[in-house]
């Protein structure tokens, strides 16, 4: 098993990738990407059974991941590349003309590791529910993971999907919400308050776990617990508290870096805070 120390080293490199990618094209979403780095690194480097080198869409016998909040594509692409789905050098093409690494993830250009387009919010849980039912029909015991933004929960389709998962007893799905309390126009509390998310998902028939999204020990223990609870007739939700912009002090805890790239000076400052552990692309 990959140790927490190793996960931490990978996360540092992924964070470097994120800020370098968005800086290079002066666009993209660093805040949420940095906030979800520890989670995605944990999923791809410890928690999920994956087969990056013989990628296929159906993913039989593999765990599947669906990114519903597609704007945090920088972290998704970095983690996919660093775990072997494609060459890390391709990260340099992010958001550039003719790239497979579109602003928001797409299957259109057959980028290994991406199973659905996302960007228009609220759709990923429905897709994951279908993929989870497909696994059941195929007698495939592997799991389906999703990630959503907390602001994304303002989309009605999320709650249609939440109702569907519980009604159909889809118990091979583990969804995670990145609770960073921020969205483009400000704090979620000010923009459109989400209320008691635990109570909401419990009322919809989900088993709800909560975790810190940066404490690798606690985060992985929670994912372990979620996995141990699968197969019991209910879907599982992890409410994961994170800090937007985590790892770069001047980006942390604010919505201001939701969709803004650092300039040259800010990039240098950010990279100074993030150790290059695996070699920059």
């Amino acid at each position, binding site marked *: 098993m990959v140790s927490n120390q190793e996960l931490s080293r990978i996360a540092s490199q992924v964070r470097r990738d994120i800020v370098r990618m968005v800086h290079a094209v002066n666009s993209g979403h660093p805040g949420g990407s940095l906030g979800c780095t520890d989670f995605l690194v944990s999923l791809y480097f410890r928690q999920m059974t994956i087969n990056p080198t013989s990628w296929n869409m159906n993913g039989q016998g593999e765990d599947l991941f669906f990114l519903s909040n597609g704007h945090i594509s920088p972290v998704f692409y970095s983690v996919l590349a660093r775990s072997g789905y494609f060459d890390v050098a391709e990260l340099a093409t992010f958001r550039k003309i003719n790239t497979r690494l579109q602003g928001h993830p797409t299957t259109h250009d057959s980028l290994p590791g991406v199973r659905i387009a996302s960007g228009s919010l609220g759709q990923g849980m*429905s*897709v994951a529910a279908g993929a989870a039912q497909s696994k059941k*029909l195929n007698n495939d015991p592997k799991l389906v993971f999703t990630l959503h933004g907390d602001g994304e929960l303002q989309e009605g389709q999320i709650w249609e999907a939440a109702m569907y998962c519980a009604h159909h007893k889809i118990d091979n799905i583990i969804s995670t919400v990145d609770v960073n309390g921020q969205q483009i126009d400000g704090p979620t509390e000010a923009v459109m308050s989400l209320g008691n998310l635990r109570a909401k998902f419990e009322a919809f028939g989900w088993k709800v776990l909560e975790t810190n999204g940066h404490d690798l020990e606690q985060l992985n223990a929670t994912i372990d617990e979620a996995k141990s609870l699968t197969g019991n007739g209910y879907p599982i939700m992890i409410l994961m508290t994170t800090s937007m912009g985590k790892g770069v002090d001047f980006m942390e805890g604010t919505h201001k870096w939701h969709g803004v790239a650092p300039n040259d000076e800010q990039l240098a400052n950010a990279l100074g805070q993030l150790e290059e552990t695996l070699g920059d692309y």
Partner: protein
Amino acid sequence: MLEFDLSPANDTRSGFGAGLHELGQKNPKVVALCADLIGSLKMDAFKKDFPERFFQVGIAEANMMGVAAGMTIGGYIPFTGTFANFSTGRVYDQIRQSIAYSDKNVKICASHAGLTLGEDGATHQILEDIGMMSMLPGMTVINPCDYNQTKAATLAIADHHGPVYLRFGRPKVTNFTAVDQNFEIGKAWHIHEGNDVTIIATGHLVWEAVEAARELEAEGISVDLINIHTIKPLDEEAIVRSAMKTGKVITCEEHMINGGLGGLVAQVLAKRAPSLMEFIGVNDSFGESGTPDQLMEKYGLKSKNIIAAAKRLMEN
């Protein structure tokens, strides 16, 4: 001439239901989803015989499109069922991102399209669905004309890899195409050869066009009659060949002219075979309550309207 072996009149949605049930037996990868309209979509037989492959989603069409997209991952071929309005306009963005842009092998099966839904009125009578679906890259759009053709189309789309919009309707209509016909996606059916005027029809308007052609022929006007069941990809060659011959073309559809068959055919002909044209369809208007027949009459979608259009063209 223009004679057919008629099967009993039936609704196109029942053709879909029969085709889906047959697919259930033939293809273990076919699954079906329905948004609280099992009876209306004639999905009862599939649900009864293949319960493990049938998924009720409730009144939540956006979720249904996403779930269907997800079920393709793992190799299944989902057929979604609800009214045409809720199959398209209500869920356009879900279809656009999760199905079309994501290249998912989902079959969107839509009943109660157009005015012939009848008394429920304009909220349910979508007349823009062909336009919306045709604009999506990679989407195949099919609007069959009777029970037999709808059943054949349902069977055919299961073997076609890629997203499909299959549009059918509510009322019982004349069932005149061949039983157990081979349905070729994208291939027009040349119903009748003629030289004076071309009539191109889709969906419920095909039978109206047949009746119009009979009368026009009796009056000495020779009709080249074409059934376009696949609106995308459009059989441009069949359309251009006929227009080159007649130079006069009428399109007929139970849909908005703008963005529908009429607009798409005009686009092809403007480039390849400029022709005099008439358009039978709904012209920038919502529908309303009434019986199907009253509505088709009021909105000018009957054979007599096609005949009048042909005569206008012949006077030019």
